[in-house]
């Protein structure tokens, strides 16, 4: 037994001694093969992967093997085993930044601060005048939240290296980590002048600025002379900060050259990805003006439509069609023009457009155009013209809306069961139908038809007539009427309705809104006392209402107006 153990020990020693010798003899192909096999085993058999990486630690395989060992040992909780291997690697390649970085990361992970600083010093001695050791050290300090220490390292290092600008990005990162946003944005601007490719890093770092600190960032990035990379960073920041209108303005004053157009395109794509059509519209429109590209005009039109500017969309889509081939124009521009006309309530013009292209399009295209035309008629409340199209195209949303116009509430309910819930035209009908069991109501149909036709006076009359008949939905109907009156500036008629909602239907979902709108009307009439009373009533009666935070803010304003605290 003892003999067997001795043999095993001897054999393992021989293997251990000969292992490195064999590794040293590995050629490039063999080393690569070992690394590839180890990579495959990293997740499933990390210990086996470690054995292979160790065998590959020679010649050309050293760097990938060392990095592989760093990953494997970290996952196995054996990162300290890496240190002797790193020391050997440094003896072989004392100027290798990768090897030195592995050593620093390892010591940092083990929290051996004294050894870490000694390792940094050793690296600095090996590569005098170079910035890499300081940059890596500062990065590790920043990652561990020691931004003040990173700042000190970089400040000292700036005096020791050949080109202090090497640290500009790191200094900017440090300033951002310390929430010194004025300093951070100033330094990022400087950094971008010689390394514009770092703009994504700048965006990430500066995006964390909050509140008034953002104004400091804006000031620095907008400063003269106008510098495209800085403006590009600010434009993205404004998108991240949900300021789409400000975002495009960041490019103001930039010379419209090829670089600018490339930056605009990147920005426009980003705005689209973030669903910020206002910014996207401005960018694509500028690109179109500069390049004349029809595709840009179409993208701009699409964004304009999404941002609620149908007239602009129509103009851009028409301009695009003029430069496109007839076929492409029919395919890409005409549907946009049609949607724009529908959104503007110009159903007759939409019909004329469809008629003008009817002979030139294939049936499937015609069906798509007629669908837009159907919605154009429905949007303007023209049930008669919409009906044949609704019947032919058989869409649940359209069927439901038409049934509402007809006052056939049961039919509308049935159609809404399968309808797309995101259709904004159906929001009010859905809310009403969920709170009344009436099967038929011509008055409700007339009210919604009048609303669609933008006939405010008729809509008001019908809504007021409907209210007594709709049971639980009465406050909803009154609120619809009150909103119309408030929107038209008629507080004298709106306030009695809001009052009625608050007093007669105090447990309805519309009651908090009633209090808030009543208060706002009082503020407009410079009646701070009433406004305070209504807002306090809202906060005390409906403390969990989504309107409570807004009511608190408006209460502060009301108190300032009334001169109380």
């Amino acid at each position: 037994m003892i003999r067997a153990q001795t043999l095993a020990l001897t054999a393992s020693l021989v293997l251990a001694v000969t292992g490195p010798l064999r590794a040293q003899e590995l050629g490039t192909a063999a080393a690569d093969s070992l690394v590839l096999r180890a990579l495959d085993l990293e997740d499933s058999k990390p210990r086996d992967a470690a054995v292979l990486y160790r065998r590959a630690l020679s010649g050309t395989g050293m760097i990938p093997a060392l990095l592989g060992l760093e990953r494997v040992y970290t996952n196995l909780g054996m990162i300290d085993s890496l240190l002797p291997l790193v020391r050997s690697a440094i003896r072989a390649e004392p100027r290798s930044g990768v090897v030195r970085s592995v050593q620093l990361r390892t010591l940092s992970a083990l929290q051996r601060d004294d050894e870490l600083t000694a390792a940094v010093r050793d690296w600095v001695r090996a590569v005098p005048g170079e910035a890499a050791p300081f940059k890596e050290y500062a990065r590790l300090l920043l990652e561990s939240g020691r931004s003040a220490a990173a700042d000190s390292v970089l400040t000292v290092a700036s005096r020791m290296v050949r080109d202090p600008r090497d640290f500009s990005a790191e200094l900017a990162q440090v300033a951002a980590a310390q929430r010194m946003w004025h300093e951070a944005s100033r330094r990022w601007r400087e950094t971008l002048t010689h390394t514009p490719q770092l703009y994504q890093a700048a965006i990430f770092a500066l995006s964390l600025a909050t509140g008034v600190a953002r104004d400091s960032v804006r000031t620095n990035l907008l400063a003269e002379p106008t510098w495209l990379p800085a403006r590009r960073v600010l434009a993205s920041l404004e998108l991240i900060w949900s300021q789409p209108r400000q975002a495009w303005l960041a490019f103001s004053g930039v010379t419209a050259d090829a670089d600018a157009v490339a930056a605009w395109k990147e920005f426009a794509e980003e705005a689209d990805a973030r669903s910020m059509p206002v910014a996207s519209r401005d960018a694509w429109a500028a690109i179109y003006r500069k390049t004349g590209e029809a595709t840009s005009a179409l993208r701009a039109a699409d964004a304009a439509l999404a941002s609620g500017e149908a007239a602009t969309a129509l103009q851009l889509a028409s301009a695009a069609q003029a430069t496109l081939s007839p076929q492409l124009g029919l395919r890409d521009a005409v549907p946009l023009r049609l949607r724009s006309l529908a959104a503007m309530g110009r159903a007759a013009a939409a019909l004329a457009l469809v008629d003008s292209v009817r002979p030139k399009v294939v049936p499937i295209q015609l069906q798509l155009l007629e669908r837009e035309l159907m919605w154009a008629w429905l949007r303007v409340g023209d049930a008669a013209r919409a009906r044949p199209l609704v019947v032919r195209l058989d869409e649940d949303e359209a069927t439901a809306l038409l049934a509402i116009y007809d006052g056939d509430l049961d039919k509308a309910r049935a159609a809404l069961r399968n309808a797309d819930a995101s259709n904004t035209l159906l929001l009010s009908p859905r809310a009403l139908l969920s709170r009344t069991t009436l099967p038929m109501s011509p008055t409700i149909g007339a009210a919604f038809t009048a609303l669609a036709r933008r006939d405010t006076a008729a809509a008001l009359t019908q809504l007021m007539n409907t209210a007594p008949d709709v049971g639980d939905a009465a406050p909803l109907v009154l609120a619809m009427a009150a909103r119309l009156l408030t929107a038209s500036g008629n507080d004298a008629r709106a306030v009695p309705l809001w009052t009625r909602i608050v007093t007669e239907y105090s447990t309805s979902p519309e009651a908090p809104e009633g209090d808030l709108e009543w208060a706002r009307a009082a503020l407009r009439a410079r009646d701070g006392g009433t406004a305070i009373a209504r807002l306090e009533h809202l906060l005390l009666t409906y403390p969990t209402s989504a309107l409570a935070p807004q009511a608190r803010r408006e209460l502060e304003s009301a108190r300032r107006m009334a001169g109380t605290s």
Partner: protein
Amino acid sequence: MGRWFRAMAFLLIAAAPLAAQHLLVPMDDAQRNHLKAYGLTYSALQRTEKAEWLLNFRGGAFLLLDTPATRRRAGIDGVSVIPTDAGALAAIRTEMAGGNFDAVPLERAPKVAIYSPPSANPWDDAVTIALDYAGIPYTKVWDPEVIAGDLSKYEWLHLHHEDFTGQYNKFYISYRGSPWFINQVNRTVAQAKQLGFSNVPALKKAVAEKMRLYVENGGFLFAMCGATETLELAIAGANVDISSGFADGTPMDADADQKMEWSRAFAVQNAHLEPSPLINSMSDIDGHQVNVPGRRRALGTFSLFAFSAKLDPVPTMLTQNHRSVLSDYYGVTTSFTKSTLKPGTRVLAYEDGMPLAKYIHGSYGKGAWTFLGGHDPEDPQHEVGAAPTDLSLYPSSPGYRLILNNVLFPAAQKKPRKT
């Protein structure tokens, strides 16, 4: 008779909890609006309702009487309150008896004065912002009122950004051409003459002396930002020219450092004045020197000390918070170099990893003072002209809580320190 008496006694005891309902105002993370909770407590004291500050319990909770007025205000302000009956309160008191907790009775709403010029800009004062947001009333006082002796009408005096050396925070260096600065200088010079002083430094020294006497006679003084450092300099330098030529027409006394009478000061001793009129620093009291690029220290974090609630109730009150480590923020004076602090100065918060204190406190005569470095806890790099902080965006700001702790501290029934 005996049976009847016992029955009545039982009824009275059973009915007592119904008449003694309380509202617990938690100040830990369960609280939705920490800053307005101070206003809620202050308003209860204004109505002469008794209140208690439960030190270290749930972030420094308040215990208020359950009255319609308190419930109403809590609802309007969005302050979280927990109705607490006698049983629940007994459980709280039992828990508090066994740990580092204490209940401090709050007896009256202190009368608050803020030393602020009539034309103060909105970016000038974090305390005004805090009190306005919390709904705590205050009176503004300025040089004429202080010189006339009006401070004795108030229990709490707050100073913020004022330069009591009369050098306008040395903004002369950077802002001498700015209209707001020119107006400020003109106004202050005219004020000094009107009050019978030959120059602004002389006026400000006289104001500082009134404030020193106010504390000595039992007042509570809370100062932030540049007011902390310059008040100390003005008091210790009462009999020496510590101002540069642009402020009083004569250069600083070359031996000013040696002539300072630090025994008169509240917190500091053996500090060194900055002799150059062109360096935007007053002395080496401030550890961060934000306006001197070569000396400026980076911002980090500062940590609140934990005190024994039962043995040291005053520092415990001043450090009640739902966070113990806070992000730092600059001011004309950001921090206090520990080597310049007097031995009796209590450090309430220290700058992590640096030999600096952020928040200090001490007694002086019959009164007490507290200094907090920095300008605006939610605007780390506060700049002249920046928009005032909107506290509705920071209703649970731990930094602003430190300011409001000082407002309620004078409301507490005084207890001598036991350590």
